[in-house]
């Protein structure tokens, strides 16, 4: 199934998700800031996962690993949007 969910946090977050029992692919868009850019890596980290706390932690670790800063949304917001999209 394919679904699109929009969440208004400090900045806007949209996820377009293709999923069955797990997330098959996701596109994360919005007017948030992420620097240095590691959005493709974040999207890849969601593939094959289910939207739960562990995924949020995985995204958080990836951001730290990349020495990146995410502003306007959080990894937990991404997981929340994915959870809503896959319910």
């Amino acid at each position: 199934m394919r679904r699109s969910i929009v969440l208004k946090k400090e900045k806007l977050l949209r996820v377009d998700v293709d999923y069955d029992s797990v997330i098959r692919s996701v596109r994360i868009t919005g007017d948030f800031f992420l620097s240095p850019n590691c959005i493709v890596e974040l999207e890849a980290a969601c593939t094959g996962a289910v939207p739960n706390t562990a995924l949020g932690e995985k995204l958080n670790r990836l951001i730290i690993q990349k020495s990146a800063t995410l502003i306007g949304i959080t990894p937990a917001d991404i997981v929340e949007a994915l959870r809503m999209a896959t319910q």
Partner: protein
Amino acid sequence: MNLRYIPYEQHSAFQNMAIDESVLEHVQQGKSPPTLRLYGWKPAAITIGFYQGIRYEVDLEKCKEQNIDVTRRITGGGAVLHEHEITYSLIAPQDQFPKDVIQSYEVICQYVVKALQSLGVQARFHPINDILVDEKKISGSAQTREKGVLLQHGTLLLDVDVDKMFSLLIVPDEKIKDKFIQSVKKRVVSLKEHGTFTREQIIKAILSEIQVHHEITPGEFSDEERTRAHELDKKYRSEEWVMQR
């Protein structure tokens, strides 16, 4: 810090974004000094934030009809109609600014805030990345940091046409479009509503404020920067870049 200042010039959106990226690369490589640009947009254009989905944000058909260029920035943030504004870009080693991104937005935005205050316009910084006058947005900025160098560019609205803006941008819910536009009109303001200022006066005020903190030396782009900007111009025009999200 000693800043090379590139005096105000107008370019297309593609060129403006290409120049910013070219300078960013050259500062990263140690080939160019920290740089301040002030610039305008000719023709009018829409830029979207790097992470935005273009199909959700911009009515591309309408932009085509009205000859409005559309491109994607390398910075995050939202969609902007660039028409009557002065844009700044500041490209410098990130260790010259606070490590905390929001604090660094504030430091740089304060140059514009103080410049506006010197013109008698009571502006204030509003986190994350805005400047407000009378609690309405007059300026928005976007920043990226790559390879130890910070690029922040931001707009200062000289005039604003919210109806035109939303004839070109896609509103979240078409059913409440009128209400949405009315609410944006209440939240956005331009300098025109706060006095009559020439572009030269505004530029002078911005430069005077920056000079309190940094040395400014007027300069120009190197041949290498120009050549690279010419190459990058093609990227900013390309469907591959603009439509990637």
